[in-house]
Structure formats: C-alpha cells, structure tokens
C-alpha cells in the first residue's frame, strides 16, 4: 500500500486546505490503519492506496469502487462481520473491522456443526 498522505487532497484551489479532523483506527484485512472520522470506508481505503475491495463469486475477479454513490455495489466488503456492505456509503467508525470479500464472503461467528 502507498502512504496515506500521498493520496489525500490536502491543498485544493477551491476546497482550500484540508481541516485537521479526528482520526479513527480501522482494521483492514488484519492490518490497522487510520481513517478520518465520518468518511466512507471506500474513501479511507482509496486514500491508503487500496483498490481491490472484493473478488467476484464465480470468476474470482477483482472489483473496486465504480460509482461511489451506493448504487453499483461493486465496492462491497465484509464490515464488522456483515458481508455485502456498500463501503462507499458506509462511514468508518473507531475499531471497525473490514475484510476484502471473496465471493459472497462469510458471516463472522457462524460455523456449522455438520452437513
């Protein structure tokens, strides 16, 4: 992954300088990283250089952000044990656990005894 600050737009001719905003810690595939409070999960991941959010069910192809407004579902990941979460419209929270999703993913805490 690239460095966090590399992909943040800190200075912008119209938006001005980015305000210092509180950071939260999120865990992405077993690695802790910082995100800006309230930003969508997808934005936090892209800022860190992560582009692959999931792999498709049948062909195992990588997918990332496509529409960024919650419509296309390309950016779904498993967030806090819940699969298929649209990360582009889900704000980060302190301690959030985010997993790159393979296929339909897995529910956290569900394992079957048999059959």
């Amino acid at each position, binding site marked *: 992954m690239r460095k966090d600050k590399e992909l943040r737009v800190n*200075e*912008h*001719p*119209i938006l001005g300088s980015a305000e210092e905003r509180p950071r939260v810690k999120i865990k992405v595939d077993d690695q802790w990283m910082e995100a800006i409070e309230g930003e969508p999960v997808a934005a936090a991941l892209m800022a860190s250089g992560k582009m692959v959010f999931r792999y498709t069910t049948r062909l195992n192809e990588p997918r990332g952000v496509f529409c960024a407004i919650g419509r296309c579902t390309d950016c779904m990941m498993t967030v806090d044990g819940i699969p298929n979460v649209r990360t582009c419209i889900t704000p980060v929270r302190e301690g959030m656990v985010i997993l790159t999703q393979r296929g339909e993913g897995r529910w956290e805490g569900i394992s079957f005894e048999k059959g």
Partner: protein
Amino acid sequence: MTLLKDGVLTNEELEALPCVPGRERMEKGAVVVIECPQDIPCNPCEPACPKGAIVVGGPITNIPVLKEDLCDGCGLCVAPCPGQAIFVVDLNHGNDEAAVSLPYEFQPLPDKGQKVKALNRRGEAVHEGTVVKVLTPSSFDRTAVITVTVPKELAMEVRSIRL
C-alpha cells in the same frame, strides 16, 4: 473548425467573434478578449462589467458582444465567467512586452515576481513570463486572476501558465 476536434480555438475562429477586440483597440491598451464561441446559456459577464461594455441580452444564449470602446480592461469580468473564457490583454504593458491576465484555479498560486511557463491554447510552453499581479479578492470566489508578462507577439497566444 478545429475547436470541436481538440478544444483549441484558431486565430480565424477567434477573429470572427464579436467579443474579440480589433487590432486598433488592442493597440490602445488593456482590453478584454472573450473567447466564447458557442450559443451556450450564460451571461454572468454582462452584469460583471461596470461599464456596460459586454452585451449578451436576450436570449442568454447569445454570444456576447464587446463594445470595445467602453471596455477599459479592468478585468472584473474575468473571474465571474463560468467558462474561464475571458482574458485581459494589455499590449502597452511595457516597451516590448505585453501583459495577459487570466483566470487561474490551481494550487499553489504563483507569487508576484515569480517566473512561470506561459502556455498557449494547446498547453505548450511558449515563453517564460513573470507574474506581475495575483488578484484573489473574495468576490472572485476562489478564481484567481493572474497577470503575466509575455512578448507582444505572444499576447494573443498565451492563455495559461504552469509553475
């Protein structure tokens, strides 16, 4: 027509516009050059001019008409233009050099006195000019107006800068 192929206005296209001053007026000193060639619905340039030198009228899709004798090159119309199509050209800035004022919305802003690359309509660096003015009043709403010096023969070529 090359404008609709690559976005670059040719001199012929430019000269045909009613909002580009004639040579005679240009030589008298600072005046605006409005590079607005299409019937788009837009007229903020009209109220921006305190002298009434820019007329769009109705419908607002009219191409603006410059009353070149009323224009004193004050540049108040540069920042309000949503298409960033208005420039001020002052052929009498210096003995050999002209000044071009242009809208600028990138970071960082140049400092006064800074040397910058002067770019033509194709984005090619054609000269190294000096920034002589950087205007950023709040009324311009974050569109800076930069004035850069260029040789007189490039006054109708240079339309952007790169730091």
